[in-house]
């Protein structure tokens, strides 16, 4: 590499202008949309105040796209649509087109190429996805594999839109939770304190910053075999893994004891109630590659119960609020244990200080 090239100063252009990549119909009608309808699962038809319309076909993919797949998706967009696409925050690709008569041929071509049309309205849309073993430095599991395995089983719900309301599922492969809040969240849950690799601590670790990172002050600097290292008060440790990213010798990931937990009722929207955080419903689920059948079975059970029991427009949190948590555990058959009772800060607000009890 020549010296001059290595020192090329960056052009700090930041976030690019989105209008240049926007379908001309969308540019013309920006801020002027009147309504939309769902003509079939996977398709949206938006109509503007000026009477123009834009059609959207939403498509699920494997998300980790190889260049062949990405070019295939582009080919489909050029051949059957207008060459304008966007990605949803759940990594579905959306083709936008002006001519409604092209929708069915596009859908056919997309499905023939092995992609899945759906994910709109009251469907179970694509699972929001983290990195996992494929390219993160701290994961307890593999997000791509979990998502692929679950979507294989949830594909009918992706392709239809007959849930009571939309369902957003998320995964996270450590307790940092890149996946975020979801109607259902499948997250790694460590169950044992980190095993400290003392030989490495002395070399790689900035000890004060690790000590400061622990949410329950369980880490102390210590001399081990005459060398500066760390020790963990295992009685205090909540096995969160927060010490692991700044200090790789704090080995939290464990083939057997890193489990999965399932949480429900996270809802980003302000519709009806205020946004809500997800709550623990199941844990101790084995982290079982390559297909994680135990986790999938619980997710499917929750979805089935929700679909049968919830009213129209109830998200999972709305549904549980109406029927109550005892009914949720009863209907799903999931065990309620001491671990479901919160003891983190603010926990008292989650206790029932009333005689509001359903019998």
């Amino acid at each position: 590499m020549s010296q001059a090239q290595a020192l090329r100063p960056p052009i700090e252009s930041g976030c690019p202008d989105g209008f240049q990549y926007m379908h001309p119909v969308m540019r013309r009608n920006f801020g002027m949309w009147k309504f939309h309808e769902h003509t079939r699962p996977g398709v949206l038809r938006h109509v503007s105040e000026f009477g123009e319309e834009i059609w959207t076909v939403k498509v699920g993919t494997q998300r980790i796209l190889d260049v062949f797949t990405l070019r295939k998706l582009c080919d489909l967009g050029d051949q059957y649509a207008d060459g304008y696409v966007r990605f949803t925050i759940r990594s579905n690709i959306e083709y936008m087109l002006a001519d409604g008569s092209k929708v069915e041929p596009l859908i056919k071509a997309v499905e023939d190429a092995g992609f899945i049309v759906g994910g709109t309205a009251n469907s179970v849309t694509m699972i929001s996805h983290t990195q996992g073993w494929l390219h993160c430095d701290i994961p307890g599991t593999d997000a791509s594999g979990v998502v692929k395995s679950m979507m294989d089983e949830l594909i009918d719900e992706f392709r239809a839109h007959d849930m009571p309301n939309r369902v957003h599922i998320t995964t996270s492969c450590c307790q940092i939770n890149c996946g975020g809040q979801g109607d259902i969240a499948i997250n790694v849950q460590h169950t044992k304190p980190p095993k400290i690799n003392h030989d490495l601590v002395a070399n790689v670790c900035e000890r004060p910053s690790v000590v400061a990172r622990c949410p329950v002050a369980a880490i102390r600097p210590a001399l081990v075999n005459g060398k500066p290292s760390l020790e963990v008060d295992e009685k205090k440790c909540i096995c969160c893994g927060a010490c692991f990213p700044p200090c790789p010798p704090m080995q939290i990931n464990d083939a057997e004891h890193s489990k999965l937990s399932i949480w429900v009722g996270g809802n980003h929207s302000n519709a009806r109630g205020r946004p809500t955080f997800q709550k623990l419903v199941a844990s101790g689920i084995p982290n079982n590659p390559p297909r994680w059948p135990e986790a999938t079975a619980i997710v499917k059970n929750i979805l089935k119960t929700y679909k049968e029991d919830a009213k129209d427009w109830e998200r999972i949190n709305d549904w549980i609020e109406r029927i109550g948590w005892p009914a949720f555990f009863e209907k799903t058959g999931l065990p309620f244990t001491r671990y479901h009772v919160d003891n983190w800060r603010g926990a008292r607000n989650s206790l029932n200080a009333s005689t509001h009890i359903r019998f």
Partner: protein
Amino acid sequence: MANNHHSTPMLDELENGPWPSFISGIKRLRDQHSDGRIQGMANDLLGQLEHSYETRKGYWKGGTVSVFGYGSGIIPRFSEVAKSFPESKEFHTVRVQPPAGNFYTTAILRQLTDSWEKYGSGLITFHGQTGNAMFIGVNTENTQAFFDEINEYGFDLGGAGPCVRTGMSCVGAARCEQSCTNEQRVHRTLMNRFTDDVHRPSLPYKFKFKVSGCPNDCVNAIERSDFAVIGTWRDEIKVDQAEVKAFIAKKGRDYVIDNVTTRCPTGCMTLNADDTLDIDNKNCVRCMHCLNVMNKALSPGDDKGVSILVGGKRTLKIGDLMGTVIVPFFKLDTDQDYKDLVTLAETIIEFWAENGLEHERCGEMIERIGLANFLEGIGIEPDPNMVIHPRQSSYVRMDGFEDAAEQFYRRKMEEKQAAAG
């Protein structure tokens, strides 16, 4: 080559089933790509991933890799098992900022693909949970060249580490009838004011902007960003009574009662005997439910703006926090309005940079010092819209109360005078 393929019995299981398989995709790179470098990288990546599946452990570690002039944007990944899988031993991710709303033409996607194929593994994700386009898998040597190439045609790196991070916006006004703001402009105005803070991490921790065009908050801004901009309106919901009647004719009165009026969180809607709908707009909290159900009949009002909530974040370290209302309504029409929005963001980031502890998110700082002190620090007066209810504990020192009350009355009077002109 074929003989050197790592055997991947566990990953092979992920080629079964109807959902598209990322494993098949990586194998295509291994088996069908014309570039031996990409073939080798894909093969060793599969090998390492299979090893992870077998041992249930990850084998990437971080490090330091960047491009000239920047301190962030590349996520370095070095293999801990490089001896067995040498060709993917450096497998860094390049975080690239997408436009607001994640719009692309197929032409620009092809251009990015071509560039990536020259230097990287051939794997891309649109997008990571950070909002970035993720170009997954490049060695240290090629990182700069790939960045230089895409930077020349308008793409720049996103944030990583303690800095302003890549923003996220919903599709918004480009295609959604609920949108109450120009997400494109808000997003770009905010992000590109802080370009320096994106590329050179020097804040206490990460700081995220997210923009949702309405309170449906499709990008999870309240739950997932330090600075959430949510479109809203303060005049009346627009009701097209003819469309209300058409909706009732189709769905029936019971449906509207069961699914619209009784679901309104404040009970502010009345379905009249003549199949028209009345809304007590004073009591509407702009939750969006009725507009979602009857999207032809009901629309947001015309006096649009945004609500701003500050301090949302996920668990680490003190537990999940939602953003808190800091500005209930912020008008966003004129250039000056946008300047004021930028000033607000600057003030908040500066105050937090000054007062936040290392690795403390803005919301955690607010939790530690109290919202009232934060508001004082950024020069915003308390407003009852910022709380669900007032204080319930009497254990507080209140000898400044009379002065504060007097200031409140003075402020109200000044506001009145200003409004009167």
